[in-house]
């Protein structure tokens, strides 16, 4: 997205469903409940939706399945699948479609029942042919190797990785919607079962059910809805690889490029951002993205997160809902970074509500650090 599209679209509704365990429901049931919740929030009906932005872990044509299930016939559809970043990516295509008049009400939606259906992380993709023979455990082996390289190059420690998990839990403990709210100490994370060195089970995101949805309209009618509009000031994507063995530098992600372009479109800098929502599939993600998005220098992410600096009361509020590590992680988490950022700006966050938030950043990650998408959202005051 370029500065030309700054503030041209707005989020006027958010919703979610099936957080934790959605017993008896299919992934599409959870998707539909999320859609209804977001439309209810916006004071709209399913029949108002004429643009659908959706992908799921099920089926090869999930957006078509979703439209059919919802009983709508969208005139614009985007089912681009870049993994968990897809839903942040849809902010760009939805803004473009709205601005071009290709649709008037855009619904971004996702749902999953991976926890109650199988109890493990569900992935729709097969391991790549040149990696599969070595039996990597997807996706953790990839993130473990990125973490190992970061520790090797910059001296990042397991304690610093654990700091990320402890901070996420501290936010989650105040969020009644979060799935894991029990106490979690540095020692708990370090002493947890090792899954793929250097990552323990507490360095890994949750495996939950859940769905989320976002309703967007053109900015010129954004004030006609019950909730305060949240404007998309900038959004940008960059992808660098698909297979982890093809990642050029295991310590630098394409968030460097997606972030720089999102900031440029929004006309703001990292120092202006009041709250940061990052896709924390693993603890190393938070460190990598804080560096690559410019909140600290490369290699200093470990020190940046130390000692509660991104926890409640710290220097930078990061993942204020508890993140994928402690709030919810139904296979693809990206949409929840946008929902929490929007709610912080609107002032109706479910957990700790920060004061007077005008600018928030949401960042999605897809594949194995493959697809990076950054969005900057703002209140009416930022236009």
């Amino acid at each position: 997205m370029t500065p030309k599209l700054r503030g041209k679209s707005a989020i006027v509704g958010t919703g979610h469903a099936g957080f934790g365990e959605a017993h008896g429901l299919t992934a599409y049931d959870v998707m539909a409940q999320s859609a209804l919740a977001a439309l209810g929030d916006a004071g709209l009906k399913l029949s108002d939706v004429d643009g659908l932005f959706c992908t799921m872990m099920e089926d090869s044509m999930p957006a078509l399945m979703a439209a059919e299930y919802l009983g709508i016939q969208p005139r614009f559809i985007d089912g681009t699948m870049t993994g968990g970043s897809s839903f942040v990516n849809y902010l760009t295509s939805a803004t473009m479609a709205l601005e071009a008049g290709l649709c008037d009400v855009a619904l971004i939606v996702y749902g999953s029942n991976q926890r109650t259906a199988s109890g493990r992380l569900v992935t729709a993709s097969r391991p790549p042919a040149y990696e599969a023979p070595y039996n990597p455990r997807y996706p953790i082996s990839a993130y473990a190797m990125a973490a190992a390289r970061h520790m090797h190059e910059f001296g990042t420690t397991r304690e610093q990785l654990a700091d990320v998990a402890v901070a996420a839990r501290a936010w989650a403990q105040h969020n009644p919607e979060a799935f894991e709210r029990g106490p979690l100490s540095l020692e708990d994370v370090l002493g947890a079962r090792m899954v793929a060195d250097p990552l323990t089970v507490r360095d890994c995101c949750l495996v939950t059910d859940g769905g989320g949805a976002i309703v967007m309209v053109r900015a010129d009618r954004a004030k006609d809805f019950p909730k305060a509009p949240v404007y998309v000031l900038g959004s940008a994507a960059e992808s660098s690889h698909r297979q982890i063995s093809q990642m050029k530098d295991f310590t630098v992600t394409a968030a460097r490029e997606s972030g720089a372009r999102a900031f440029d479109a929004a006309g703001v800098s990292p120092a202006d951002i009041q709250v940061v929502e990052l896709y924390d599939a693993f603890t190393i993600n938070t460190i990598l993205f804080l560096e690559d998005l410019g909140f600290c220098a490369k290699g200093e992410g470990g020190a940046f997160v130390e000692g509660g600096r991104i926890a409640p009361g710290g220097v930078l509020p990061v993942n204020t809902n508890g993140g994928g590590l402690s709030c919810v992680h139904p296979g693809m988490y990206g949409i929840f970074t946008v929902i929490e950022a929007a709610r912080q700006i609107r002032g109706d966050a479910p957990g700790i509500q920060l004061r007077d938030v005008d600018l928030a950043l949401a960042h999605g990650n897809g594949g194995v650090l493959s697809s990076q998408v950054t969005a900057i959202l703002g209140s009416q005051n930022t236009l």
Partner: protein
Amino acid sequence: MPDATGPDQIFQRALTNGEIVLPRCDDCGAYHFFPRVLCPHCHGTAISWHPASGKGRVHTTTVVRQKLERGGDYNVCVVELEEGVRMMSRVEGIAPRDIVIDMVVTAFVGGAEGQPAVLFKPAEV
């Protein structure tokens, strides 16, 4: 595969014969991996095949923990070959926890998941 013509077929047929070959671009001279019909560096399409030196270095590594009754812990790593390409693989002949970044390794054709595959062992010094 007597009539191996595609890049993947050529690579796999060589493995079946116990050889590791790597694709190199005739235009820019750079190697690439995985095999494909174009050079990902300069996008040239004249690709030729060359025996791999077999010399590599562990770029990054992990130990996938697994219960003993399911086969126990094993290594997954990414090795950078002298030719400048990287591949996912496994280092054998050493405990998974003793494999470290920058360890010098030598390639050999072994078996993985019932297929011939490029594996590595610690280089003899």
